[in-house]
């Protein structure tokens, strides 16, 4: 099921036009294969990212609401953001304007200066991951897979922003992308840190805090012998990729974990060329890991809860009763 008229309003956000251009390239390539029509909103502006909200509330909301007002002018009610921070801000603004009539009035007074107005609730704000999984569905995606990612061990990293609010998955232990990656043929490792914070912009304020958060995630992915970390957010990608060297120097570690976007993984599985997906622009090169595709992994997962011998007790199933 897609949007009513098969069209989505698309809010790229600043990252996708700069540091995360690989995300946009791969997303667009995949969307074309999935026959989804994304129309970029005209004259959009920055969402204020994570920090503006704590500095000055009203300008922060107004900044975001301007994008909502512009998007609402499009002939669809579905607004998609691929960046988790943009998604959260757009959604938060829509929600808070709905709940607080005073905020709605103030924001609209600010928007009026530019001849704009936004009625909260007009748009349904969605993350790209949610659109691909809930509107397209695993089955339709599976049908497009021509080169399964067999042999590749991937750590699904959701980060902390996309999971709240995320209606159809568990915020503490999401599994949506796990299933998507399985559909693509990859081996998904259990990844307990999947919804933990990457440090966000803390890299600019406190390296002590940020590098420790990044280290934990890399450490966990390495412990589970992942070849690649797969993300849904430009911020997460940047932190885990660009600061991996800093983390290695600071903690004396030797992590070498490429960090790719889920759209890049989809594109690979759909048989697209790596260059067409922006692969190669990451700082920790992914090519070596991607060469594994098609090879059957030698080792089995380290912690196996399977029945090992006659003494072992049965392991409860993962399925809820």
């Amino acid at each position, binding site marked *: 099921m897609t949007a009513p008229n098969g069209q989505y309003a698309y809010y790229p956000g600043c990252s996708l036009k700069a540091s995360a251009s690989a995300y946009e390239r791969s997303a667009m390539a995949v969307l074309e294969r999935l026959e989804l029509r994304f129309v970029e909103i005209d004259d959009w502006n920055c969402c204020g990212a994570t920090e503006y909200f704590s500095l000055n509330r009203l300008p922060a909301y107004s900044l975001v609401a301007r994008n909502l007002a512009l998007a609402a002018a499009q002939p669809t009610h579905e607004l998609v953001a691929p960046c988790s921070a943009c998604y959260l801000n757009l959604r938060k603004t829509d929600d808070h304007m709905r709940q607080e009539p005073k905020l709605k009035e103030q924001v609209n007074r600010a928007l009026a200066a530019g001849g704009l107005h936004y009625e909260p609730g007009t748009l349904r704000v969605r993350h790209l991951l949610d659109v691909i999984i809930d509107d397209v569905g695993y089955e339709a995606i599976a049908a497009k897979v021509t080169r399964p990612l067999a042999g590749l061990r991937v750590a699904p990293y959701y980060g902390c922003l996309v999971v709240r609010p995320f209606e159809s998955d*568990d915020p*503490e*232990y999401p599994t949506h992308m796990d299933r998507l990656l399985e559909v693509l043929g990859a081996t998904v490792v*259990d990844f*307990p*840190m999947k919804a933990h914070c990457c440090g966000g912009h803390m890299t600019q304020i406190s390296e002590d805090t940020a590098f420790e958060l990044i280290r*934990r995630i890399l*450490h*966990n992915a390495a*412990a589970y012998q992942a070849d690649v970390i797969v993300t849904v957010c430009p911020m997460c990608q940047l932190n885990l990729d660009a600061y991996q060297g800093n983390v290695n120097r600071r903690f004396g570690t030797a992590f070498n974990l490429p960090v790719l976007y889920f759209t890049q993984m989809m594109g690979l599985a759909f048989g697209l060329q790596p260059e067409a997906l922006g692969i190669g622009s990451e700082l920790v090169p992914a090519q070596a890991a991607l060469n594994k595709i098609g090879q059957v992994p030698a080792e089995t997962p380290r*912690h196996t*809860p399977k029945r*090992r*011998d*006659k*003494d*072992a*007790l*049965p*392991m*409860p*199933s*993962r*399925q*809820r*009763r």
Partner: protein
Amino acid sequence: MTEERVGVYVCHCGHNIAGTVDVEAVAQWAQTLPYVAVARDYRFMCSSLGQELIEKDIKELGLTRVVVAACSPHMHEPTFRGVSARAGLNPYLMEMANIREHASWVHRDDMAAATDKAKALVAGAVRRALELKPLEPFKAAIKETTLVVGGGIAGITAALEIANAGYPVVMVEREPSIGGHMAQLDKTFPTLDCSACILTPKMFDVGTHPNITLLTYSEVEQVDGYVGNFTVRVRKKARKINTDVCTGCGDCWSRCPAKVVDEVFEAGLGYRTAVYRPFPQAVPKYPVIDVESCIYFQKGTCRACEKFCPTGAISFDQEDEVIVLSVGNIVLATGYKTFDPRQIPQYGYGRLANVFTSMEFERMVNAAGPTGGKVVLRDGVTTPKSVGIIHCVGSRDHRFNRYCSATCCMAALKFSHLVKERTNAEVYQFYIDMRASFKDYEEFYVRILDEGAHMVRGRVAEVTDAARQPGEEGKLIIQVEDTLIGRQRRIPVDMVILMVGMEPQEDAVEISHLFGIGCSTAGFFTERHPKLDPVATMTDGIFICGACQGPKDIPESVGQGAATAARVLSLIGQKEVEIEPIRAQIDESRCSGCRVCNTMCPYSAIDYIEELGVSRVNPALCKGCGTCVAACPSQVITGQHFTYEAIMAQIEGLLYDVRSGNGHKTVAEPQPVEVA
């Protein structure tokens, strides 16, 4: 035509009504209503003085109707009917106006409005009372047999008490053996006595008692009738074992090649065969063949059990049997199930091997359990050096169950002791509040503290195997805010036990419908009164006990089991019951025989009389629900006590002060009626 004389009695109910409703004003006002001979207010109408007051008035003033404006008729209708009867007035000429639940309690902040509403309710009751007809209750003999559904400790206690008093009991248990959850436990708090040692003798008594018929592997399918005379249909599932010749020797299950995880008795921690007896002390001793996992039933070959059975007891073609019982009273003791912790994925159950549920742990420490009582990790051999016990999993949590499961704090302390006793491991308890009410519980808590358990106050955020710092490798790390020191802590342990909460059985709501009793939205059965009638239900003759009524421990379940027995025995002792004469009645002379009512009746209480071409209500089955009364296209069915006249009169009374647009009263003044 004699003049009607109505007495109106307005109760203060202490402060309950008088605090919000101006009771004096209501009484004075009621005095002015047509046909009201006397209206009084009094502090407690239900007290003996209050009752005497009404009795005296009936006799001295010659009252022909009585209206009591007080609490819900659920509470005191029987009381005031009794008052009327003692004073020589037909009890069905007494009417209650509920000015407590319907006025004072719901309009606490508006005395004027509450008083106005009370007046309207009284006016409605007076008008209705004038239309009531005297009725005589039916008398029905009480069948002496009692049905007990559920053979846990609560049901066992009820059954034995009734049987020991000399009356027959039929016990229906869904599983192959009775015993319930208590049979799975190892030790019981707070005294740490062995669960099996105190339970098995009682199970044995149930199995051998001359007054108890035991139907295991059976379920109730249908219930009809009323207090004293229930008809119950029970499906006895095919055991595939001829119990007349089976000796319970065990040759069948020791030869059975099909092994499956035992999700019921072993709580998933152990295996059983397809032909199995859940545990050695099972009552009855006979096994059952689980058709789902039996190789012969699934694949068509095997029959190993049949080959080895020395008495030829295996009976593959045995069919389900339907048994119809005729019983006077029913005791429901269907117990509870435990919360499925997979709903909290961050605690890792089903993902992290060494996270266990409390029920799994009970089986682990049980000497007859899968590990022979050894405390070990999921690999079956490694002894843990540290154990974290997480409280309130699925309880006191707005996402799942808001209530406290009442038994987990104590069971967690018990586990602490058992872990120490068997492994000398460090034990960490993660709790929100410790609840150690009741006799000897606080002392038990102190004892466990003295044994050296580490108590951490805080709700656990996460259990993870993602090591972050040295010392965490290969461990389960419990991330928690320790609210006593105001810090985040990470505590690495080898084993985690989740104290899962107690929930109503999966099918509790259906069971409540089957037996026609109430239950909360969660599914715990509702008692008639939370304080004064905790084991009766709103349906006469059906009683509840044990954890099906709410989370509780063994002592309380046993107390309730015995209490239901006392209630049942008191009814049996009365030999007959009075049954409300409130029934539907068809005026056969005007019945067109269309049979609409026959199909509508939820109790199949209406028969069609072929020769006469009319329908007729069987008063023994009719519950007076009124469905047919409303459905009859010819309006020839009357609901006794709820006649059209009475209902319309009550509505007119309620609307006594409502005026239409032109300022005229919308309802007529009461018209005199004939005294019956």
